[in-house]
């Protein structure tokens, strides 16, 4: 009798602690989300740790979609702050799966998009991709400002950085500044430096960059 009582006690205490079996997926997604913020905020060490954790959790499953998405996300973030990235990590595992959505996204990143890929892109990129495909940069530029997701806006802007209008760049800097995305702010400040119309403006931008880059 007493053993049954003890067992019931343990079972009752433990019944509220059940967790989903695919914890690795949740942990991986959360870690990547944290990576996105830390990377853009220029918290290098934390970002590195977040990415490693995201990859580590994703590698707990034979389904490599999560891992491929992380690799692609890492590549996209690099591109969005002006770092050259050819998404080699993704390419290494691309042939192990046939994910049209990821392939389309990859095509967008390396600017090799085909018309048939557009339907597989996330909703917020579709119109921008169409304009890009038509080489209508002015339309693409306008469309960037209508994208609500900040990271997507940063990515699109960096994909057409040489054709971007000055006001759009200013808007991008404001968005990045508001969110504390130091890496993106610095990248776009350096980009606006190319468009500076006067030495005074150039001096101001340089001063801002120098302040942001200095330690304490």
């Amino acid at each position, binding site marked *: *009798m007493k053993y049954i009582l*003890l067992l019931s006690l343990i079972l009752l*205490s433990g019944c509220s602690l059940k967790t989903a079996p695919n914890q690795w*997926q949740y942990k*991986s997604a959360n870690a990547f989300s944290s990576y996105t913020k830390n990377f853009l905020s220029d918290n290098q060490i934390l970002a590195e740790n977040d990415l490693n*954790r995201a990859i580590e959790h994703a590698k707990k499953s034979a389904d490599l979609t999560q891992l491929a998405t992380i690799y692609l*996300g890492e590549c*996209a973030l690099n591109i*969005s702050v002006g770092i050259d990235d050819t998404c080699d990590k993704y390419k290494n595992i691309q042939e192990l799966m046939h994910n049209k959505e990821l392939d389309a996204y990859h095509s967008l990143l390396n600017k090799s998009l085909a018309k048939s890929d557009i339907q597989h892109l996330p909703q917020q990129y579709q119109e921008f991709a169409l304009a890009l495909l038509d080489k209508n940069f002015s339309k693409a530029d306008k469309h960037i400002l209508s994208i609500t997701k900040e990271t997507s806006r940063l990515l699109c802007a960096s994909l057409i950085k040489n054709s971007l209008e000055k006001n759009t760049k200013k808007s991008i800097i404001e968005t990045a500044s508001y969110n504390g995305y130091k890496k993106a702010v610095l990248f776009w400040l350096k980009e606006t430096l190319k468009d500076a119309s006067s030495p005074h403006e150039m001096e101001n931008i340089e001063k801002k960059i120098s302040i942001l880059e200095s330690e304490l």
Partner: protein
Amino acid sequence: MQYNKMNFTVGLFMLSLLLLLLAFIFFLLEEKGTFEKRYNYHFTTQSAESFSVGMPLKFSGFKIGVIDDISLLEDGSVLITFSVRKTNAKWLSQGSVLLLIKPLLGAAHINLYSALDSPPLQDGEAIPIHISDNINDLIVKLQPVVSKSLNVLNSVDKITTDLADENSNLKQILKNLNIFSERLANDKSLLTSVTGDKTSTQNVIKSLNETTLILKDVKKITSDISEITKTLKQDIINPSSSTIKEMHIIMKDIKNKLQTLDATVKAVGGYDKDLVELKKQISTGLQKSNQIMDKVDAIMQNENNSKVELP
């Protein structure tokens, strides 16, 4: 509606938990015998010394009861009451005897000796007690041994005193032996008396003389050898000895250096192990902190998304 249902479920869970906890405590106390009836017995003794409240009562080495009360009676004797649990009352029977054990080492306790075939002792009845004092018993047993040892020591003392006396028989025998050996050495006729023949005595003396001559020759040879070894010592042994001494110093120095090196190598080996251990511990620490960070991420981001969100 759903909130009420959740409230009810939580309430039911808490109520079940409380009931289970109470039942658990009840069974625990019951198992400890808290609710069980206790049987009281008593005995009287001349002194309360060596007894105390809470003192255990043992049967076959198992604790079956404790002393509950000690009180002084009008006639000067001491009444001691003890109790046992219902399950242990069967060990106390008519004719049972208690024995207070005071061991040389350890605390005093009471042992119960029972004839299990006898009818059981009723609640509240008296039981006789005997006291076994191990220390006093030991002293009583040791007393005859000590007195015998004293006798032996007295006898040894007497013998040694007799032997030391100048007029003792042993001393006389030793003196006589001394006189005899002196005469044997100086007097030829005594030697004859030992050999039993004069010619033999002459031969012995002649042999002794020849031995003396031989010994003289041997002495001369050894002095010659000594001369030769002196030369050897000067020409060969001394230089060799100094070289060996130098070699010894060098070898000693090398040995010391090797020992130092050995200690260094061992220490380095130890550090290597320490480093591996440290690395392991750091890795474990990192893993643990990563697990915490996973949990913090889950709380902070307040997201239930299992898919990675692309920029």
